[in-house]
């Protein structure tokens, strides 16, 4: 049986980059806070192995999508990430692609007769 509540592994992997881009699109943040906001927004249904986010962040940084900076806040050192121009472009592309999938699926599902 499929667990409808949790996202499949493949979907989690595919959605990581667009999720990161989207969260950073709202402003800079650090890894832990990023994970927290994704968990909250998804109602706990998107569960990452937390440490795995960092290699993704580092890869995105090497690709020039985001940049990072160590800063001290509340007495603790944290590495903050923010979008770069390249990242904004990537975010727009992701948005279009995901919207395409979304509207296609929605169009297909609407025709299905509903139980009253």
């Amino acid at each position, binding site marked *: 049986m499929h667990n409808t509540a949790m996202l499949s592994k493949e979907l989690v992997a595919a959605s990581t980059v667009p999720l990161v881009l989207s969260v950073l699109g709202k402003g800079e943040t*650090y*890894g*832990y*806070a990023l994970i927290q906001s994704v968990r909250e927004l998804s109602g706990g249904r998107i569960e990452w*192995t*937390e*440490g*795995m986010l*960092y*290699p993704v962040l*580092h*890869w995105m*940084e*090497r*690709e*020039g999508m985001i*940049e990072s900076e*160590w800063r001290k806040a509340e007495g*603790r*050192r*944290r*590495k903050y990430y923010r979008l770069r121009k390249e990242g904004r472009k990537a975010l727009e592309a992701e948005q279009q692609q995901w919207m395409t999938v979304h509207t296609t699926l929605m169009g297909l599902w609407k025709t299905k007769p509903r139980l009253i």
Partner: protein
Amino acid sequence: MDDRPHNPDGLMENQTSFDLKAAIRNWRQNLAQSPEFRTGDVDELESHVQDSVAELEGCGLSAEEAFVIATRRVGSGPALAEEFARGNGQALWIDRGLWMIVGWAAISGFKSMAESTAQIAFIPTEFRTDLPLLVWILPILVGAILLRSLIRAEGVVPRLLGKLQGRPLALALTALGVGAFSLLLRVLALDYITGHRMLREFILGNLMSLSEWLIAALVILVMARRKLRLAKA
């Protein structure tokens, strides 16, 4: 004391003088043993675990419980190492090369200072003045600081190097400074021993050593900048 067997609270209280700082330090050291991680990676993961522990504690968990859950959530060492290794390849080698040269600079500087000490050590005591005393004490002091840094996780030297990592020029200048200073001490030591007789020749001789340090500083500068650029993508 109540010694019923089913008393988890009592059991916990008896065992736990749980040292959160030490637990995190251990966890960190375990992680740092994998060559796949770079220093900044481990720092970042630790900062994550610290945040996670703080939040879990805020939910009413004990420090130990919070630590266990936070480290579980962040992922196991080998699995993390595998993920990090994919991206770190080239940067990792630059990192290693850089720290090798920094290590060479530290050891050479120390050795040079120790040599000055050794030279002066064989001068009869009645001739010793303030300057050689400085020459005497410095290597011991530097050696002690280095040793303490190696023994303790949060020593002065690693912290300083960590700060300098992001500033290639400062790192290179520090290496050059250590080199110049150690050479100056040698010159001063010899000046003292020979009574000004050979100073000129010795300074000329040491200019060669200085060029060695210049090259090292230059290599450090280039590698550290390359490393930064890689990190910045």
